[in-house]
Structures are given as structure tokens and as C-alpha cells.
């Protein structure tokens, strides 16, 4: 069956766009910088799912899309495609992270301590009606017991287990990563392709996959060995001065190192129980996503034939743009498709009569 080109609807579409503005017009417009400062978690989620770290532009996309996350991510991905990528950073090492928060669910006592940092984890989930009365300009809070301290850096929790020989000490693997934004993803996917795809995935999708696995649809139950959030420097080689490095700035990331017991075959009667890991790292502050990513990574590391979860399923269905785009396309005319379904049903009914 051939497609038929049709015309019409231009005026209706134009009016629809006018209505989009008038239906959602705000009495007080927020400055883009206000959006950055008031909704940092949302901005982080947009940047992570768009794969583009640009807080001001993420806020702009959110404002333009009137708070629609999927539209904001679409705008960011579209904008990103208009720019050229001139530089690749040197490998970022998160052991050099300037820590804002760092906890371990595996050990109580860790070198550097459990630093809760800013978190909702222990907050009362009660609406704060005081915010209704909040003035635009906030007064600076006065801190009474003033403490000053140097930047906080922490040793990795993993190193504790490495010292005991429970985790293997691994040497740097400098194989160039696969880039899913420039190459077609093939399966089984390279681990670098997997991690890049997961970090760009939709937070809800990744959370759902990880949750289903923890509930019993997977064989891995990971423990958060370490969760850290803070600033890492991004450095590139100086294009003119050989051997020199330029720091282009700092980015805020959340990283999770998940520990999972796994079996290693031995020549003896029983398997040996060892530890394996899962890794999660995302732009900004999004702990649920980073933990989910580490669980999915560890699950795929341990995947065996016949497992419910395979990398093709996870890696091809988590992109916000592709997922929402595909679902959204169902709103577009499918007149011919439906007519053919209708013809089939009518034909069947006539036959039955």
C-alpha cells in the first residue's frame, strides 16, 4: 500500500501553537537563572538525559517547554546536534572528586566518614506551607557555630576490599570507548557503549528496570558500596602547547559503586563466592538513577543465556527522546493503517454473517 500525501491543517497547527502559549501563559515569568537555582534536580535530570551539561540551557529548555521534561530533553538534544564537538576530555577520575556527599551502605566506618551532605533522605515529607508566603528575596541565614574546612576528598570504599583481596586490583584499561552518539549500537554491546547509553537513559525507565530486578526478576542484589556526589574537573590537552593541559571547568556528578556477591567456578566441589561490581555515574545529582544504573550494569555483567534482561532490551528502550518520540508518533495520522484494520474486521464480520 502506498502512502498518500495530503494537505491541510496549517491554520489549525498555527492556532494550536498560539494556544500553547496562551493556555500556559504565566502572570510572572521566571528568569532562566531563577529556574537554574530553584529546580537544580530537574535541571540535572534534563542534562543527564539529554547528554549535554549546560545548566543555563537546560533551564531555558525547561522554561520554553513549560515544564515538560520530555520536550526539554528533546530541545537540548536537538540543540546539541547543531554544535560541533571539537574536544575530548582527558579521563576524569572520580577519586579526585571534591565531595559534597559520600555514603556507604556496605560499611559503617569508612575512611573519611559517612558525609550525608544535602539530601532529602531524612526529611519529613510534609508540605511546607511556609513557602507560600516566601518572599522573592531570601535573607541570608546566619550560621552560629561557624566552621571552615578545606575541600573534601575521600578514599574509595572499594580500596578497603581490594586490600583484603576480595576485589581484584585492576589496571587502567585505556581502550578507546565506543561512542553511541556517533556509531550504530550493535549487540552484544561493548561495556563503554552500555555505560554511555545507561547514563543518557530516562530516569524512570532505568529505575523501573532496576526495581524489577531487585524484586526478583533478576539474579543480582547489589549493595551500595559507595555513593558520592560532588565536583570533578574536566581537562583537555592544550591544542597549541604540547604536554600542557587546560581545565575547562568543573561538573557536578553522582557516582555509585555497587558491590554484588557472585560465584566463580573452581576446580573443587563448590563455587567460590567473590565480589563483582556495578557502576553508575550521571551528570548532576540524581542518586536513584546512578544506583539504578549500577544495578543494571552489574546485572548485565552477570547475565547468562536465558535471563529476562538482556542488553539489547535495556539499551534500545531507555532513551527519553526515542521512547517518547515513538509513543508520541501514535498521535499522528494513522488513517490508512486503521482503515486496513477496519477493513479486516468488517470483512471478517461479513464472512461470519
Amino acid at each position: 500500500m502506498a502512502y498518500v500525501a495530503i494537505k491541510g491543517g496549517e491554520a489549525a497547527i498555527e492556532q494550536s501553537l498560539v494556544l500553547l502559549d496562551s493556555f500556559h501563559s504565566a502572570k510572572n515569568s521566571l528568569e532562566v537563572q531563577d529556574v537554574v537555582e530553584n529546580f537544580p534536580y530537574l535541571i540535572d535530570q534534563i542534562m543527564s538525559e539529554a547528554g549535554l551539561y549546560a545548566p543555563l540551557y537546560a533551564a531555558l529548555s525547561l522554561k520554553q517547554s513549560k515544564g515538560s521534561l520530555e520536550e526539554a530533553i528533546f530541545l537540548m538534544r536537538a540543540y546539541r546536534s547543531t554544535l560541533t564537538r571539537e574536544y575530548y576530555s582527558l579521563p576524569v577520575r572520580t577519586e579526585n572528586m571534591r565531595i559534597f556527599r559520600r555514603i556507604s551502605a556496605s560499611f559503617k566506618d569508612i575512611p573519611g566518614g559517612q558525609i550525608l551532605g544535602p539530601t532529602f533522605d531524612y526529611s519529613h515529607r510534609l508540605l511546607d506551607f511556609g513557602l507560600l508566603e516566601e518572599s522573592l528575596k531570601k535573607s541570608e541565614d546566619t550560621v552560629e557555630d561557624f566552621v571552615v574546612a578545606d575541600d573534601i576528598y575521600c578514599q574509595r570504599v572499594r580500596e578497603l576490599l581490594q586490600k583484603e583481596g576480595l576485589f581484584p586490583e585492576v589496571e587502567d584499561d585505556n581502550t578507546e570507548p565506543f561512542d553511541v552518539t556517533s556509531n550504530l549500537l550493535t549487540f552484544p554491546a561493548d561495556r563503554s557503549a552500555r555505560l554511555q547509553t545507561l547514563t543518557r537513559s530516562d530516569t524512570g525507565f532505568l529505575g523501573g528496570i532496576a526495581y524489577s530486578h531487585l524484586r526478583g526478576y533478576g539474579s543480582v542484589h547489589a549493595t551500595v558500596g559507595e555513593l558520592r556526589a560532588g565536583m570533578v574537573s574536566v581537562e583537555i590537552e592544550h591544542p597549541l602547547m604540547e604536554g600542557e593541559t587546560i581545565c575547562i571547568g568543573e561538573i557536578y556528578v553522582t557516582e555509585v559503586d555497587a558491590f554484588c556477591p557472585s560465584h566463580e567456578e573452581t576446580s573443587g566441589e563448590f563455587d567460590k563466592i567473590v565480589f563483582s561490581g556495578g557502576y553508575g555515574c550521571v551528570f548532576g545529582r540524581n542518586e536513584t538513577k546512578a544506583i539504578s544504573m549500577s544495578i543494571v550494569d552489574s546485572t548485565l555483567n552477570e547475565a547468562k543465556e536465558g535471563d529476562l534482561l538482556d542488553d539489547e532490551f535495556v539499551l534500545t528502550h531507555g532513551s527519553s527522546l526515542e521512547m517518547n518520540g515513538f509513543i508520541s508518533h501514535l498521535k499522528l495520522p494513522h488513517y490508512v493503517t486503521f482503515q486496513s484494520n477496519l477493513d479486516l474486521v468488517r470483512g471478517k464480520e461479513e464472512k461470519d454473517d
Partner: protein
Amino acid sequence: MKLEYSKAISMATTDEVIKISEILKDKHTIKTIKKPQKTLTMVKMREVVNASLFYLGEVLCCECMVEIDGVKGFFVTMGDDFEKVQAAATIDGAYNAKFQECELLDAVLDDLVKKQIDERKNMNGEILKSKVDFNLMGE
């Protein structure tokens, strides 16, 4: 330019960087070779499980190249602040040319590094107050 200076410049305000570049403005001829423009830097991460590499995502940056008395200077920094990146490229050019003003630039940039470290100290102190002090019940 030292790495720590480039970090300080990247984290500084536009006004701060422009002010530092003004040390060079009247004494040297500065030409723009590559106008400030937006670009992307792909962030390469070292994960901890296998110590392998993967791409975390891209960072919006801007870049600029200048020539200062015939010597090239270049800078890339996060964001889209064209004035700042141009001033930073001028400072880089001065270091590449090894101008006598480098000593003064060193002093000014050392101050900037120190100022940024000092500005973080209060926040660091507040963060450290959230470190858990485990005590056994009954002690």
C-alpha cells in the same frame, strides 16, 4: 599556563578574567585568530569496576584563539561566555610568549586560586557538619 590557573580562570567570573587580561591590553597587540564560538567537549570517564573508559556526555563550552604580539593564545571554558574566553585566551598567549608580565599574572592568579579556595571553606565546613558521628546506644 599552569593547570591550576586555567581551572581558576574557568571558575572565575567574567569581570575577574577581563580585569586580569587588562594587564596585557595596552602593552601588546592582540588580534583575534578564531572568534569566540560555542563547541562541545565529550567527557571521558574512568569507571571504577574495570578501570575502563566510557563517555559520560558532552559539556557545552566556548573556545577562542588570539595572537598577542604574534604568539598564539588559546582557551576553552565551560559555558557560552565569549568575553571571558577571549580574555582567557589573551592570558594564555602571554604565558606562551613568556612575557615579563607573567610574574605579575602569576601573583594575580595565585590570589584568585586562594580566593576561590577560601570561598569554599565555609561550605566545606557546613558539609563536614553532616558527617555521621556513630555512637553505640547506651554509651
